[in-house]
Every structure is written in structure tokens, then in C-alpha cells.
């Protein structure tokens, strides 16, 4: 009976591992995979659509480029990523799938403890469309995320509160008028 249960759990485990996590970041890194091409087919409204996703990785397992092709093998999405020497993402470029021109650039900036403190989204002309500023406490825990639009216009502020064991107990998001637009509280039993 025990062996049967073990086998069942094992089989379910393998199924989920293959079905959900076809390739994880760690798997790609450990196997030194340089490129992944995945094809998925879906029947939608009686039409069979195929989607092909191509990803290229560097030696450290960081994704460098992602292209998505639709049914007719036409590229519908194209992204490029770059990293610093610590392997932290520094830029994420969205390219025009046909011309290859840069549509938008998201840049990431870190403090000396490798925590992301700023990310900016710029359009093709270099105008900043979005700015996200993140603050941390002395323990390195995220305390505030502030989002701005073009021209430093405040969009939202998300604050985080932790208990004395470092677990998040509250997350509140306020809009530019300081109204609460989203709230989450968590209770733990130790």
C-alpha cells in the first residue's frame, strides 16, 4: 500500500514537473542550455493556432533574447535583455518585430546590496514614460514602491509592513489622491 502511494506521488510529481516547469531558470543554467524553442498549439473558436517561442541564453543562464512567432511564422513580439557582471538585469528592450527598431527600454538600477531601487521605462524617443522607485529598510526588506508617470506625476504608492520575524503582514497601495486602492493583510500562526 505504501509503495503504491509512493509510486502515485512520484508519478504525479513527474507529471507536474514536466507539465508546469518545462524548463526552469535553474535547469537551463545547470545544463548550459543556449537556446530554447517551444511550440504550443491551441484550438480556439474552432481554429487551430500555433505559437512558437524562441529564447536565447548566455553562459550564466540569463535570457538574452525572446521572440514569439504566430501561426504564419511572423514575429509578433521581440525582446532583448542585458545584465551587469553580477548577473542582475540592467535593461529590457522591446523591439519592433518587423523593423527591429527599439520601441521601448526599461532600465534597472540597484543599490550596493544588489536591491533594485529604480526602474525606468523610456519610449523610442528617449522620453521617460514610467519610473518606479523602491525603498528598503535596514534589514533589506522592501518598504515602499512608488510609481510615477511622465513628468514625475505620482501614480501609486505601495507600502509594506513586516512582523518581528520579517514576514510581510500588510501591503497597502494608494493612488495619487492618497486613497487606498488595494489592501492585503496576512496573519501568521507560529
Amino acid at each position, binding site marked *: 500500500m505504501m509503495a503504491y502511494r509512493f509510486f502515485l506521488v512520484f508519478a504525479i510529481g513527474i507529471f507536474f514537473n514536466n507539465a508546469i516547469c518545462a524548463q526552469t531558470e535553474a535547469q537551463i543554467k545547470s545544463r548550459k542550455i543556449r537556446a530554447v524553442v517551444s511550440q504550443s498549439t491551441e484550438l480556439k473558436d474552432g481554429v487551430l493556432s500555433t505559437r512558437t517561442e524562441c529564447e536565447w541564453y548566455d553562459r550564466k543562464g540569463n535570457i538574452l533574447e525572446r521572440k514569439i512567432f504566430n501561426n504564419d511564422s511572423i514575429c509578433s513580439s521581440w525582446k532583448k535583455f542585458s545584465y551587469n557582471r553580477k548577473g542582475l538585469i540592467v535593461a529590457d528592450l522591446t523591439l519592433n518585430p518587423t523593423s527591429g527598431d527599439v520601441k521601448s527600454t526599461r532600465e534597472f538600477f540597484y*543599490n*550596493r546590496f544588489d536591491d533594485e531601487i529604480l526602474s525606468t521605462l523610456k519610449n523610442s524617443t528617449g522620453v521617460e514614460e514610467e519610473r518606479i522607485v523602491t525603498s528598503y529598510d535596514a534589514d533589506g526588506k522592501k518598504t515602499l514602491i512608488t510609481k510615477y508617470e511622465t513628468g514625475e506625476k505620482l501614480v501609486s504608492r505601495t507600502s509594506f509592513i513586516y512582523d518581528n520575524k520579517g514576514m510581510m503582514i500588510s501591503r497597502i497601495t494608494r493612488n495619487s489622491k492618497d486613497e487606498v486602492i488595494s489592501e492585503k493583510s496576512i496573519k501568521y500562526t507560529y
Partner: protein
Amino acid sequence: MEINQRFLIFLFFSSFVWSSSSGQQKDFVTMPQLAISHDFNASVYAEFFQQAMFYENSSELWMNSSDIGAGIKLNKAFSTELHYRNITFKRQNNQFENRNLIYHTLTYQRKVGKLLLSIRNRTQQLSFAEHFNDNYRSPRWYDRVRLNLSYRYNYYWSCGANGELFFPLNNKDRTGLDQYRIGTSLTRRFNNRLSTAATYQIQQQVGRSGNNTFFVLGLQVNIQI
């Protein structure tokens, strides 16, 4: 399960105490310590230690010290600290002597999964007070290198092993290594602000006329304010 775990820990330390205290030519020392620290921000912090050491099989006060220091976390891997320590030390004539210690540390640490490796270099100057006394001695400089490896079992429990080498810098009688220490530690964290640690350390003097060995059992309370 919880009781079994505690019993095993008690047994582990008891066996050390028994084995060390039964060798009378060597000494068993106990060391209670209170450490209070405060983070000003993510980089800068301050620390205060109060520490006492009891020798002669933990029957007499050997030394008592108060330590104050400040540290800077330079990045994720490196940190540096500067400390001042005032020590009241019992000499062989049973007289207590006042000593001052200033030391600087540079620590490198790297976390791999649940393992934390740290290497610390400590440069210290020990000066003997009463400058105008007949028994005045010039300050002693040391360079100490410590390697620590700790394993975090879960949020609450972690254990570690460490080794430290002492190199005298201005002692003409001792040019090379004159002491090494090896130790183990077991830490229980209650929350982000309070933890306790039990340590066991063998302090071995080498290259001296009388090489003493001390078996030091330490109990430490760490508070973050």
C-alpha cells in the same frame, strides 16, 4: 521532537564541559556575553558588548570587558568595523589590571544556499594602562584571521564552526603564530531582534614558554534595538 532536540543539544555541550573540566592542567572557562546592536540604516550600525570570563574551572573572574564599535556594510559581501574595548584583566599576582584594546575588522562573507562562509581579518592594538607605572609595557599589535562556516537549518536554528589564527606583529620573542582557536556555535533566533548563542571554543597558545589551553563555553544574548 522538540524535547529530543533540546536534550541532544544539552548532551552535546555537557559532554564538552565534562571532558574539558576533567583535565586539570588545562583550564575550563565560561564566558557570558551580552551584545546590543543598532542599525542606523542599511549600511551603518553600532554595537555594544559586555563580556565576562571565569577561569580556574569557572570559579574565578578572569576578565571583564566592555566593547563599543561601529560598522559599515560596504556591499553585500564586505563589511568593516572599528571597536574600542576596555578590559579588566586579572594577572597572576591576583591584581586586576586595566587594558585597552582598539581593533579594526574587515569581513568578507558569501552565502551559498543555507551555508554562510565568512573570513574576517582583525588588526588590534592592546595597550596596558598606567603608562607611568614601573611595570609599563609597550602596546602589543596582533593580526587575527578567522574563518567561519555556518549552516542555517531554519529561521530559528543555525550552527557553525570556526577557526582563528593569531599573528603577533611587534613581539620580538614571538615572530610567528602564537595562538589558534577552534570553535563551534549553536544559535537560536527568536525573532529579528533577539537571539541567543551557545559557543564552545578551544584556545590553544603556541610558541610560548607555557602553552596554555583553554576550553571556553560561551553563552551569548544578542539584542537589536
